[in-house]
């Protein structure tokens, strides 16, 4: 079964098998045709013989005479003659027969239906033959010139003629051998030709297979190319190249993402390690130790946030994550999300203005997604705004959409920065981050969340402000 899974084997089996069947049928047909023809010839000969034998028999009173020429008569008595005949009365009494005929010929042609009908038979010489018979009434021979002379009663005679089939059988035997020889030769040629044709036809497939095997996956511009590829596999090659391109891009993105993720985690890890090493290498001091532990905890929180965001991105990217939706109070949730940044905003002497009058009391939304998005946007605003800068948070309804606008004093971003602030692990002018613990995936994650719930997220920049506007549709519960 495994062998038959190979296209080559299947094609070879089908084509060669088909050739053999054609050869067998062809040979059989030719053999049958020739045999039929030869038998017909014999039968024709027997029919003629019956005819002239019939004509040769005459009834003379009670006697049956045969008017035969001398050569014919000599032939009848030639023991080597392959032809036989036998005249009998209907009661079986023998009248006249070939001199070489020892036993009786079969009783064929007694019935009208069997007259002139050829049969295979065993000849008295032990060989196979064809025989044909008929019943007839010979002509009356009238020797008197007196027209009133009495005519004898007509007698019916059964005549059977036969011919040795040895010659035909010999010819047919030769024909069989010839056809078998031709068949074997044609089959051999067919096998060679089929193998050659199948091999040539499958050559592009082999090339394709080898190229696929040797083509490294994940390298851009690595394409499969088969010169003079048959039109049947061109779509396969095109599709394959398209897939290779997509796989390369996906792997590259994955690699880049992993590399960036590792990079972003290494920085806080380096800080954590150095802090602990320093503390371990120093003389024990409760205050210094407390400070080290507080820093370690802060770094851990930063890393936890990065990892959490990465996991959320992966879940959203997979497209298989389902999030619960329920009625939320957007302004209340925004306030909750602001809480962790309250102290930091105060430390940075930020002026924060809230405009939540337009916020609906109830909005259908996934609270977990909303919190992640709001937390990232507010965290970014607090971290990136210049010292003593301003932050404005506006919430309102626009048609059926919840519009959240978070603006902050421009930290030095320009229009060109809009091109990459949504890219993962990109942080505009990093000076604004200033080691704030942002991994550069917050905006990317927010955009992914908004896309998931079919909303909109746009960034706007002017000389004074950097603004993120989010428009969210209600999510069906």
């Amino acid at each position, binding site marked *: 079964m495994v062998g038959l899974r190979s296209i080559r084997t299947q094609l070879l089996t089908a084509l060669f098998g088909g050739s053999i069947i054609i050869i067998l049928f062809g040979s059989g047909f030719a053999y049958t045709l020739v045999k039929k023809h030869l038998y017909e010839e014999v039968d024709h000969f027997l029919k003629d013989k019956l005819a002239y034998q019939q004509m040769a028999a005459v009834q003379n009173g009670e006697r049956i005479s045969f008017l035969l020429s001398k050569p014919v008569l000599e032939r009848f008595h030639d023991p080597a003659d392959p032809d036989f005949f036998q005249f009998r009365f209907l009661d079986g009494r023998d009248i006249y027969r070939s001199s070489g005929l020892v036993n009786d010929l079969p009783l064929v042609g007694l019935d009208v239906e069997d007259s002139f009908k050829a049969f295979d038979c065993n000849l008295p010489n032990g060989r196979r033959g064809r025989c044909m018979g008929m019943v007839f009434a010979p002509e009356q021979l009238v020797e008197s010139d007196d027209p009133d002379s009495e005519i004898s009663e007509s007698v019916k005679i059964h005549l059977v003629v036969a011919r040795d089939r040895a010659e035909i059988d010999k010819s047919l035997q030769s024909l069989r051998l010839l056809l078998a020889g031709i068949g074997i030769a044609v089959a051999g040629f067919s096998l060679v030709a089929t193998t050659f044709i199948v091999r040539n036809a499958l050559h592009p497939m082999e090339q394709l297979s080898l190229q696929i095997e040797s083509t490294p996956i994940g390298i851009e511009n690595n394409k499969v190319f088969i010169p003079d590829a048959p039109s049947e596999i061109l779509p396969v090659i095109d599709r394959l190249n398209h897939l290779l391109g997509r796989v390369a891009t996906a792997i590259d993105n994955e690699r880049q993402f992993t*590399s960036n993720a*590792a*990079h*972003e985690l*290494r*920085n*806080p*890890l*380096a*800080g*954590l*390690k*150095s*802090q602990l*090493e*320093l503390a371990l*290498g*120093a003389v024990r001091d409760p205050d210094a130790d407390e400070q080290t532990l507080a*820093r370690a905890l*802060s*770094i851990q929180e930063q890393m936890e946030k990065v990892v959490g965001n990465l996991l959320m991105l992966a879940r959203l990217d997979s497209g298989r994550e389902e999030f619960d939706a329920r009625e939320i109070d957007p302004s209340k949730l925004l306030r909750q999300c602001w809480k962790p940044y309250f102290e930091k905003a105060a430390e940075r002497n930020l002026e924060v203005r809230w405009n939540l009058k337009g916020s609906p009391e109830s909005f259908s939304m996934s609270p977990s997604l909303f919190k992640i998005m709001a937390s990232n946007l507010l965290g970014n605003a607090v971290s990136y705004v210049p010292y003593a800068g301003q932050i404005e948070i506006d919430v309102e309804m626009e048609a059926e959409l919840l519009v959240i606008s978070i603006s902050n004093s421009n930290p030095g971003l320009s229009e060109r920065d809009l091109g990459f602030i949504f890219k993962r692990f990109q942080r505009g*002018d*990093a*000076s*604004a*981050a*200033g*080691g704030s613990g942002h991994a550069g995936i917050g905006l990317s994650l927010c955009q992914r969340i908004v896309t998931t719930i079919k909303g909109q997220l746009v960034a706007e920049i002017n000389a004074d402000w950097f603004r993120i506007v989010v428009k969210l549709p209600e999510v069906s519960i």
Partner: protein
Amino acid sequence: MRILLVEDNAPLRDAIAARLRRDGFAVDATGDGNEGMWLALENPYTLLILDLTLPGLDGLDILRKIRAIKKEMAVIITTARDAVADRITGLDAGADDYIIKPFSLEELMARARTQMRRLHGQADPVIRVADLEVDTKSRIARRAGVILELTAKEFGLLELLALRMGQIVRRADIWEQLYDFAEETDSNVIDVFINRLRKKSEASGGTRLIHTRRGLGYLLYDPEVSR
């Protein structure tokens, strides 16, 4: 020895700076690329420890600008970028060494000492002047086999003189190499340290190795060898 540390990760920056200061190095630390660049160009640092991903100005840009004016300063890059291509780029830009985050502070210290020795043409971590041994690796000095009880600052001064053995080191240079911007110093603090060093190194006898060149500065050498 004065070191400039440019690193935007505050906990890491603080830890490295504290570790370097513990060994008696003067450290100026900043988390901003532009400020780091300005400091590197304006001050005579022996070593620059430079992060690549910096706010303001990229670490590689800082490095290229420093090397463009051929400033003599050993540079160690500290970065989380571990790809071979990144290392090659960093080293080709003029870095002397490259260390991947997260690293051990002790490894960074070892690499820093190596680079500073290399800058002064010293391959051996132990510098010997007569019977004085200055072990830059273990930060220990011995005179005639006896360990000298030196503070980090005193060892730093001795190390500086030892690395420039036989050369006059100006008081201003010593002051620059021993003190960072955060430290307040008196004008005669260098003389005080030199005196303390002399006392400690000559406590068990032996020839004077730290010499004064009035109006010029100080130098460490063995007069027996010079004679």
